[in-house]
C-alpha cells in the first residue's frame, strides 16, 4: 500500500466533549475499493469518528486527508461534495415525501423530478436495489427505506459510503443481499466504511478492519488475518474478558440450553395463552391472523421475524398493551414489558430513576405517592440489578444505554411478574451490557417467569430461546430452533 | 381672560377646597392619536395645563381592572381632579370616589353624581340632529348612513338624533346603521362605508373614532358621497368630502370644570353641556358650504337658536329613558 495515497485518512483525531474525551489520537486509513469495517464497544468513539468524517462534528485536533490532500469537512453538505455519504442507523428520510423527492433533497441543481425518477430507475437497475420512485417513504418497509438511503447516496456520486449498523434491522435474506451489494460496490471502485457489531458478518464482508477502544485506534489489519476472538480481544482490551462475554461474542456458540431444559421440564404451567388471536391496524389491515400460542412458566420463547411481519403486534398483545381484534388472550395480571425503543416507549429521560421505577403501575395508582419508600425500593433495585448511577434521584438521561436497559428490565421484573415480554433487548448495547442483560433474562426464566424474547438479531434469539416461534406475514408457528429452519420460516408464510 | 390662571401662585385666600397647585389627571379608553374622542380629551388636559398651570397626568387604560387602580392611585397622590373619559368609567369612579373625598372625579358621558363625583354630559345629539337636518336636505338618493365603532349609548343616541334631524326635513329619508366592531380597524370602517354606499347611502355620519378615517377614505374614493365628522373638528382631514363636524369642544368643557375647581366654586353635579354653552356645535366645512341647500342652512340656524334658548331638545332613543 505504498503507491497510491489512501482514499481517506484520519490522523491523530481528538474530540472532547467537556471533560470527556471521545476520541484521542485516533486514526483510520481507508483505501479505494475496499470494505473497511470499524469496530468497537459502545462508546469507543465509532459514531463520533463517523460524524467527523461526515461533517456533523468537528475534530478538536488532528487532520483529515482525502486522496492525500488535507481536507476540512465543515458540514454534511461539504462532505457530500467530496463524495462522502452516510447511512445512519436512524434513517434520515422524510416520510411525508416521495422516494424521488427524498433523493432530490439537498441537491444543488434545479429540481427536476422527472429526471430524478429516471435517475433512480437507472441506479436501481445498475445496483440491483429495487425501489419505486413514486412511493411515499412512510409506506416503505424498513428494508426498502435502507435501499432508498443507499440510492440516495449513489445519486450524489458517492465514492465513500459510511454504513452504520446497516443489517441490524434487516431479515437475514435482506442482510445477505446488502452484503453482496457492498462487495460489488467496492469491487467497482467504491469505498465502504462499515460500522458494525456482528463479528461474523464483518469477517464475511470486510477487506480490512479497524478497532477503536476508548477513543483510540487499537487495531488495524486485514480481515483474513483475524478471527472473532482476536477481534473481541482487541475491542475489550484483552484477557480481562470473562468467559460469559466470550460466549456472547461468538453468539452462535452461546446457546446454553441445559438450564432451559431442566426448568421447562420442572414447571409446565401455562402462563400465557393466545387462542385464535387476530389484530387489525388502524387502516383495517390484518396484521396478525389466527394466532395460537402458549407460553409456560420457566421457559424462554424466542420470537423470530423480519421487520413488519406482525411480531410487534404479537408482542404487544402478549404484553397486554394491545387488545386483540379477534380471539382471546389469556394473560397473567402482571406482565413485564421491555420494548425495543427504550427512549420512546420505556423510560422518561428527563425524570429521575425513582420516578421511572414508579412509572410501573402508574395507571392504576391512587392517592398520594409514597416517594420515600419508592426511593428506598429504587436503591435496592439498583443494587440488585447493578444499575450504575450517581443516585436514585439522578435523571435517567445521565445513565449509559446499558444501565438504562438494566433499569428497565429490573423495573419490569420487580414484583416477580409471571411473564416478561422483551423486544430486541440488547440493541445498541455493548458486549458487557449484552452479557448482563442475557444473564438477567435467564435468571428470570430460572425463577419461573415465562419469558418471551424477540430480537432482530436472529443469533441472539437462538442463543436465548428454549423454543422458537416465527412470525411471517401475520401467521405464527413454532419451528425447530435451528438457524437454517428459522431463517427459512421467517421469509415464507406458514404453508398449512 | 386666561391671565388669572397662568400664575401658579394660586395663593388665593379661598378655603381648603382649593389646593395650592391644581393637579389634574385623565383616563382615556384609547390612544390619544385618534383625532377624535380621546385626542380631544387629551387636548383638554393640555389646555388645563397651559391655561391654569396645573400639573397634569394622562393614562390610557386597556381593561376595567385598571379603572379602579388608576382612580385610586390618583386619589392617593392627592390629585384635585380626575377625568374618566367615557361612560365605562362610571362604576369604578363611583366606588373609588367614596374612598378619596378630597379628589373630584368626573366621568364624561356620565349621569351619576355624589359629593365628589360629577357626570359630564354632552348634548352631542343636538349637533347630530343639526347634521341630520343637512343630511336630510342634501341627500340625492334619499338614503343616509351612520357608522359607529361599537354599539355604545352615546353613539346610539347620536345616530338616533341624526336620523330624526334628517326626518324633520325629509320624512321619507332612509337610514342605514352599521358598527365596525372596534375603534381602530380603519380598513373595516372603510368597507362598512363602501357597503352602505353600494346601498345608495350618499351622506354618512361617522362616530367610529380612529376607524372613522377609513370612512372618510371611502367617501374620497366614491362619487358624490359626503361625510360628517364627529367629536373633534375633522373638516380638515378630508376637506373635499367632509360637509361638517359635530364637535364636542372637550378642551372647553374640561377647562370649564377645572376653572370652577380652581376658583373653589365647584359643586358636584351632572353637568350637561350642549349648544347653549357652545361646547357642542356643528362646524360646517366652508369649502363645501355652497353645496348645501340654502333652506337647510336656515333651518339649522333657527333650530340652533331653539337649542340655545332651551326651548327644544334633540330627541334621544326611547330606551335610554329607562333609568335604573
Amino acid at each position, binding site marked *: 500500500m505504498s503507491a497510491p495515497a489512501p482514499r481517506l485518512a484520519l490522523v491523530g483525531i481528538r474530540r472532547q*466533549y*467537556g*471533560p*470527556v474525551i*471521545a476520541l484521542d489520537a485516533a486514526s483510520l486509513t481507508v483505501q479505494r475499493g475496499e470494505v473497511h469495517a470499524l469496530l468497537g464497544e*459502545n*462508546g469507543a468513539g465509532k*459514531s*463520533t469518528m463517523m460524524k467527523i468524517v461526515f461533517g456533523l*462534528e468537528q475534530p478538536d485536533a488532528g487532520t483529515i486527508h482525502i486522496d492525500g490532500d488535507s481536507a476540512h469537512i465543515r458540514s454534511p453538505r461539504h462532505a457530500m461534495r467530496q463524495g462522502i455519504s452516510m447511512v445512519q442507523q*436512524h434513517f434520515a428520510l422524510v416520510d411525508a415525501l416521495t422516494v424521488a423527492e427524498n433523493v432530490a433533497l439537498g441537491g444543488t441543481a434545479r429540481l427536476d423530478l422527472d429526471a430524478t425518477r429516471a435517475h433512480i430507475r437507472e441506479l436501481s437497475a445498475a445496483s440491483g436495489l429495487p425501489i419505486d420512485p413514486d412511493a411515499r417513504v412512510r409506506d416503505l418497509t424498513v428494508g426498502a427505506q435502507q435501499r432508498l438511503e443507499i440510492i440516495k447516496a449513489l445519486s450524489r456520486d458517492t465514492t465513500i459510503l459510511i454504513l452504520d449498523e446497516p443489517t441490524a434491522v434487516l431479515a437475514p435474506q435482506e442482510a445477505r443481499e446488502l452484503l453482496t451489494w457492498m462487495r460489488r460496490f467496492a469491487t467497482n471502485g467504491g469505498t465502504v466504511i462499515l460500522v458494525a457489531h456482528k463479528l461474523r458478518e464483518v469477517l464475511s464482508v470486510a477487506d480490512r478492519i479497524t478497532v477503536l477502544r476508548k477513543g483510540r485506534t487499537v487495531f488495524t489489519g486485514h480481515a483474513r488475518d483475524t478471527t472473532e476472538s482476536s477481534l473481541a480481544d482487541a475491542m475489550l482490551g484483552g484477557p480481562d474478558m470473562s468467559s460469559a462475554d466470550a460466549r456472547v461474542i461468538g453468539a452462535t456458540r452461546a446457546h446454553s440450553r441445559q438450564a432451559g431444559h431442566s426448568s421447562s421440564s420442572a414447571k409446565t404451567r401455562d402462563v400465557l395463552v393466545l387462542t385464535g388471536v387476530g389484530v387489525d391496524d388502524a387502516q383495517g389491515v390484518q396484521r396478525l391472523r389466527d394466532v395460537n400460542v402458549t407460553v409456560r412458566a420457566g421457559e424462554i420463547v424466542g420470537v423470530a421475524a423480519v421487520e413488519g411481519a406482525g411480531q410487534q403486534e404479537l408482542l404487544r398483545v402478549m404484553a397486554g*398493551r394491545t387488545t386483540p381484534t379477534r380471539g382471546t388472550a389469556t394473560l397473567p395480571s402482571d406482565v413485564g*414489558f421491555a*420494548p425495543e425503543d427504550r*427512549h420512546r*416507549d*420505556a*423510560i*422518561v429521560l428527563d*425524570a429521575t430513576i425513582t*420516578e421511572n421505577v414508579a*412509572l410501573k*403501575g*402508574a*395507571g*392504576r*395508582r*391512587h*392517592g398520594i*405517592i409514597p416517594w420515600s419508600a419508592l426511593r428506598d425500593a429504587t436503591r435496592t433495585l439498583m443494587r440488585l440489578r447493578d444499575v450504575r*448511577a450517581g443516585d436514585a434521584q*439522578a435523571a435517567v*438521561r*445521565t*445513565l*449509559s444505554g446499558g444501565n438504562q436497559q438494566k433499569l*428497565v428490565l429490573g423495573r419490569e421484573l420487580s414484583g416477580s411478574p409471571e411473564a416478561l415480554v422483551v423486544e430486541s433487548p440488547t440493541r445498541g448495547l455493548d458486549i458487557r451490557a449484552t452479557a448482563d442483560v442475557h444473564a438477567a433474562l435467564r435468571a428470570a426464566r430460572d425463577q419461573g417467569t415465562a419469558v418471551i424474547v424477540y430480537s432482530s438479531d436472529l443469533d441472539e434469539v437462538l442463543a436465548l430461546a428454549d423454543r422458537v416461534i416465527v412470525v411471517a406475514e401475520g401467521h405464527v408457528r413454532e419451528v425447530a430452533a435451528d438457524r437454517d429452519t428459522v431463517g427459512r420460516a421467517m421469509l415464507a408464510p406458514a404453508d398449512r | 381672560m386666561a391671565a388669572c390662571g397662568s400664575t401658579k401662585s394660586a395663593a388665593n385666600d379661598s378655603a381648603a377646597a382649593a389646593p395650592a397647585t391644581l393637579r389634574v389627571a385623565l383616563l382615556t379608553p384609547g*390612544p390619544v392619536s385618534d383625532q377624535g374622542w380621546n385626542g380631544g380629551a387629551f387636548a383638554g388636559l393640555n389646555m388645563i395645563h397651559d391655561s391654569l398651570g396645573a400639573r397634569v*397626568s*394622562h393614562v*390610557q387604560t*386597556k*381593561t*376595567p*381592572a385598571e*379603572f*379602579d*387602580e*388608576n382612580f*385610586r*392611585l390618583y386619589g392617593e397622590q392627592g390629585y384635585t381632579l380626575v377625568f374618566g373619559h367615557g*361612560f365605562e368609567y362610571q*362604576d369604578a369612579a363611583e366606588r373609588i370616589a367614596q374612598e378619596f373625598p378630597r379628589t373630584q372625579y368626573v366621568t364624561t358621558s356620565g349621569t351619576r353624581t355624589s359629593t365628589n363625583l360629577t357626570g359630564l354630559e354632552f348634548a352631542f345629539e343636538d349637533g347630530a340632529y343639526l347634521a341630520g337636518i343637512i343630511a336630510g336636505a342634501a341627500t340625492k338618493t334619499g338614503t343616509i348612513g351612520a357608522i359607529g365603532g*361599537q*354599539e*355604545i349609548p352615546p353613539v346610539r343616541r347620536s345616530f338616533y338624533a341624526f336620523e330624526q334631524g334628517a326626518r324633520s326635513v325629509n320624512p321619507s329619508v332612509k337610514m342605514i346603521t352599521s358598527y365596525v*366592531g372596534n375603534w381602530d380597524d380603519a380598513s373595516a370602517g372603510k368597507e362598512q362605508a363602501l357597503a352602505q354606499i353600494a346601498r345608495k347611502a350618499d351622506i354618512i355620519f361617522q362616530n367610529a373614532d380612529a376607524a372613522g378615517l377609513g370612512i372618510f377614505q371611502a367617501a374620497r374614493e366614491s362619487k358624490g358621497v359626503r361625510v360628517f365628522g364627529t367629536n373633534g373638528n375633522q373638516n380638515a382631514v378630508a376637506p373635499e368630502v367632509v360637509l361638517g363636524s359635530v364637535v364636542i369642544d372637550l378642551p372647553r368643557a374640561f377647562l370649564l370644570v377645572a376653572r370652577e375647581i380652581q376658583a373653589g366654586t365647584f359643586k358636584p353635579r351632572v353637568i350637561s353641556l350642549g349648544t347653549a354653552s357652545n361646547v357642542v356645535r356643528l362646524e360646517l366645512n366652508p369649502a363645501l358650504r355652497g353645496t348645501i341647500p340654502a333652506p337647510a342652512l336656515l333651518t339649522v340656524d333657527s333650530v340652533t337658536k331653539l337649542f340655545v334658548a332651551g326651548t327644544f331638545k334633540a330627541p334621544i332613543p326611547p330606551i*335610554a329613558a*329607562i333609568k*335604573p
Partner: protein
Amino acid sequence: MMRIARMVLDPLLAGILSLLMLAALLVVSGYPVAESLTALWRGAFGSWSVIASGTLVRATPLLFAGLAIAVAFRAGILNIGAEGQLLIGAAAATAVAMIMPTSLGLAGALLVLLAGGLAGGAWAAVAALLRVRFGVLEVISTIMLNVIALNITGLLVRGPLQEPTRIFPQSALIDQALRLPRLIPGTRLHLGVALAVCCALGLAWFLRYTAPGFRLRMTGSNAAAAASAGGIDVRRVMFSAFVMSGALAGLGGAVEVTGVTYALYENLSPGYGYTAIAVALLARLNPASAIGAAVVFGSLEAGASAMQRDAQVPAGLVGVVEACVILMLLASEWIGAKVQGMRSLNRGGTPHDQVLEASSSPA
C-alpha cells in the same frame, strides 16, 4: 444546585437586559430615562398600597392563567387558549352571580367561582376533544377558540347579560354579597389573591405527590413511555389536564369579575392569557415559582401604568417593555443553558453517550 442558581440567575439577567433595552428605547423616543424608571419602580413597589392594590391585584389573573398554561405544558399540551377560557369563565361566573340568591353569602360567592372554573374547563374541553378525538393541533384550535370566546363575550354583554337599563355593553354589577371580600380594608387586595396562591401551592403539591399529578407529568415528558410502561391512559390524562388548565383560567376570569371589576366587560382581559405564557415560562412551568413570576409581570404592568401617569410615557411603550422582557428571558435562558451545558458534563453518568444521543436523535 445549578438548577436553583439558574432559576434565580436567568430572570435576573433578563431583568437587567430588559432594563437596558427600555432605557435605550426611552432615550431614542425622547422620554426622561431616570424619571421613567423611577416611576416604574414606584408604581410597582413604591408603597404597601401600590403593592397591595396594584401589583398583587394585577398579578392574580396572570397567576391563574399562568398556572393554566403551566399545567397544560407539563402535560405536553400547548394550550394557548387561556385567554378564551378566562373570558368564558368570567362570563359564566357573571351569569351565575346574576341568578344566585344573595342570602347564601360566601358560599354563594364560592359557587360563582365554581361556575367560572367549570365553564373555563368546558371551553378547554372543546379544544381537548378536537385534539384527542380529531387530532386538531391545539395551538391552532385554541387561537380560534380565543376569538370565538371574545365574540361570545361581546354578544353576552349586549344580549342576555346586558345590564338592566340595556344601555351599556356590560353586565349589571355583581351583588355585594357575592363579591370576594377584601383582605386588607382600604386596598384592593381581595380573597382571590390568596386563592390564587393556594391554587399554585396546591397544584405544585398535586404534581409532585399525587398519582394523577405523576401521571400528568409522565405523560407530558414522554407519552409513549407513560402509556406503554406505566399503563397510563394518556388520552384521558391529556384530556383531564387540558380541562384542568381551562378550569384554572376560567377560575381566574371568575376571580377577576368577583374580586376586581364586579361586572362583565367585553375588554375584561387585556391579553392575560398571552402574558401568562411568559409567566409560565419564567416559572419554568413550576406552579410554586409561578407565584413569583406572576408578581414580576404584575409589577411590570402596575409599574408601566405608573410610567404613563408619572412620566407621560405612552401606553405603546409599555407593550414594548413587556415584549422585551419576554425576549430577553428567552435569550437569557439560552445563555444559561449554554453555561450549564458546559458544566453538566462534569457530573456522573456517561456524558459521552448523552452527547451522542443528543446529537443523533431527530426532533
